[in-house]
């Protein structure tokens, strides 16, 4: 059996790569995908630590994280589409004001 610390280490690496993606990319779609990467890394750590402590609470929490991620992606992509209709361009560096 692989020790749970390996899973948590993998999740730390994946989370850092998600942070890197959010920081270095300019396309809001890719930034969104990097956020999904981070959420998945957190889910992996939750499941691994839940297994280690012998409870199902971690898995229940992951279920809620997935629901929130689904809602977040739907709303976020709708916002990106709305911004694209307004600006005809997609680059987060140019979207520095909240006013349309």
């Amino acid at each position, binding site marked *: *059996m*692989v020790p749970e610390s390996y899973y948590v280490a993998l999740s730390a*690496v994946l989370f*850092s790569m998600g942070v890197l993606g959010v*920081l270095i990319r300019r396309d809001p779609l890719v930034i969104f995908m990097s956020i999904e990467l981070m959420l*998945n890394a957190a889910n992996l750590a939750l499941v691994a630590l839940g*297994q280690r402590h012998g409870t199902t609470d971690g898995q*229940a929490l992951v279920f809620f994280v997935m629901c929130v991620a689904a809602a977040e992606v739907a*709303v976020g992509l709708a916002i990106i589409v709305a911004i694209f209709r307004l600006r005809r361009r997609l680059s987060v560096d140019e979207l520095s004001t909240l006013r349309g």
Partner: protein
Amino acid sequence: MSFVTFFVLAALAVGSAVGLLVRRNPIHGALFLVVNLGTIAALFLTLRAEFLAAVQVIVYAGAIAVLFVFAIMVLIPGKEETGPDPLRGQRLLTVPVVTLLLVLLALVLGSGTFQGPAKPPLAGGTEAVGRVLFTEYLFPFEVTSVLLLVAIVGVMALTKRRA
């Protein structure tokens, strides 16, 4: 055997994450993301979280990935990340900052989380998750439905074309 499975899956997960970061075309990024989500589902299976593996494939690799591909098809981006980088100095700083974050995570996780013997693995699997979802976490579970409803209404309000 389980070590071999883990390391193959870990290499796939990290490799697809690197692919997501370095490919300029967002549709390639979306496909790499699907690979990543699939490997996470397989890692859930190796952790004996069968229910979450199934939900991961249905919700993430199914619904969310399709949503991303739809958005990419609607927007047709891909040429936005060309041209001079207005924040080049800040972007050069990201790699040391993220390395620092990784070191901090390793220090925090290594400082006592994994001391002491592990508990015996759980029995029950999906049944145990369902039991805890519908008893202990019943209220958050119901709130989730409201959250999803709000998301549906919000998306419709956001994407409605004004006359």
